[in-house]
């Protein structure tokens, strides 16, 4: 086998290992999906309260969804560690939008929908990446 062929073989093996490593971590335990659903449940309460005309309760739930759940349950730090601070900024912006809409007594549907989609997508990724419940990356 020529040097070049062996080098290509080694390169292929190396790339294979790089690709296989993250895939091996796909046996997610669903922790972050459960956390996201808790946050989403509070967002749902905010949306429902606004629809029912209880703007103050809606605003309170909108604020609580971030401070009492998203941040308190370490999803913010988990996203920062695994998905990057830019992604965290995007999600926080969605939370802020929800709260501003609630403060304005406006319809929350669009803001809530965007936030739900973002949280579910991120939670899947965090589980796939096996991010620990304290937000740390395993093995680091």
């Amino acid at each position, binding site marked *: 086998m020529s*040097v070049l062929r*062996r*080098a290509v073989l*080694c*390169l292929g093996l*190396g*790339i294979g290992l*790089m690709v296989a490593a993250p895939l091996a971590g796909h046996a997610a335990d669903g922790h972050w999906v459960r956390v996201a659903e808790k946050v989403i449940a509070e967002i749902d309460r905010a949306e429902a309260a606004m629809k029912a005309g209880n703007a*103050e309760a809606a*605003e*309170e739930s909108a*604020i*609580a969804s*971030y*401070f*009492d759940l998203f*941040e*308190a349950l370490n999803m*913010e*730090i988990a996203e*920062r*560690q*695994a*998905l*990057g*601070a*830019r992604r965290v*900024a995007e999600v*926080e912006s969605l*939370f*802020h939008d929800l*709260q501003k809409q609630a*403060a304005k007594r406006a319809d929350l549907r669009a803001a809530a929908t965007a936030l739900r989609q973002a949280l579910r997508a991120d939670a899947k990724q965090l589980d796939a990446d096996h991010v620990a419940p304290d937000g740390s*990356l395993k093995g*680091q």
Partner: protein
Amino acid sequence: MRRLLLALAVIVSFGLSCPASSLAAPLDIAAAVSAVQAKGDALVESYDPAQKMPTMRGFSSLYFEQFDGDLENTIGAADPALKSELEAGFAQVIGQVRKGGTPAEVQASWQALRDGLDRVPSRIGGGGAWATFLQSFLILVREGFEAMLVVTALVAYLRRSGAPEKARVVYQGVGLALLASLAMAWGMSTLFSMSGAGREAMEGGTMLLASAVLFYCSYWLFAKREAARWQSYVQSQIDQALSGGRLYALGFAAFLAVFREGAETVLFYQALAAGAPGQMPALLGGLALAIVALAAIYVAMRVLSIRLPLRLFFGVTAALLYYLAFFVRRERRGRDAEWPCPAGDAAGRLAQSELVGGLSHP
């Protein structure tokens, strides 16, 4: 070598000369903290348990509009623990208000947060001139050394193979990489402030390519560590190898190694300059000392490469290159963990994040 170091100094000087165009004005930390404290004082002063929503809303807005973002990320870059403490402090105050705590309870929670905020100015910029000097020194030594590992291995190979004049291909790769680093740094400053996805794609692509090329070169060097095989190879194929595709691969490997480190270095220094206003003499002092240190390291590595036996030398250099091949991939993941923005600018955020992450890497 002198041209290499001169070019390195030029690239960093260029990077330092254009922070005004690529980075927004540095954040006035003391003023930002004072503004947060003043608004928090007013909110707590007006807190009424029977009318909790204005205070909740006020603290939430205070967090998202004044703390979250530039201020929070700058604190996170300097002291992640303090950042977490302050975040928790906001949640604590809002939680107290939400449950209708007494004014004394809310005041106590706010005071704890306020005390944490008091510590911020002293944590940003840390030890002042000395810290800036040390950071400046470490940035260039670390980044330069990584590139030097690759360049030294490649040049030594060519010298060992009896074709030292072909080392110019490697140096040409280095020179082109320095020029490309300037362009890349400028491009990142402008393009990435508009498109985060573009930054990810380009940086990820560069690192993957660098990883693949380094992996190939490291295998190739490793396969040549047997002296007899090496001598045989040199005798039979040197002309063909040095004038063919492998020579190009060596130059390309040098280009990638220096290009990646060069672009990072410019961004690191931009971030350092933006985050340490008034510390330019310390920054330049660290830079100068780093250039001297790199020159000394380079000379030492060249001398060692001459005296080391072929088997050991190629074994060690191959191991170093394998390390780099995997290191670039590992770093790709780690660096995205933090992305602070000291100056409200995407390039600044990227650079400061790499500065923080980079200094903690091996």
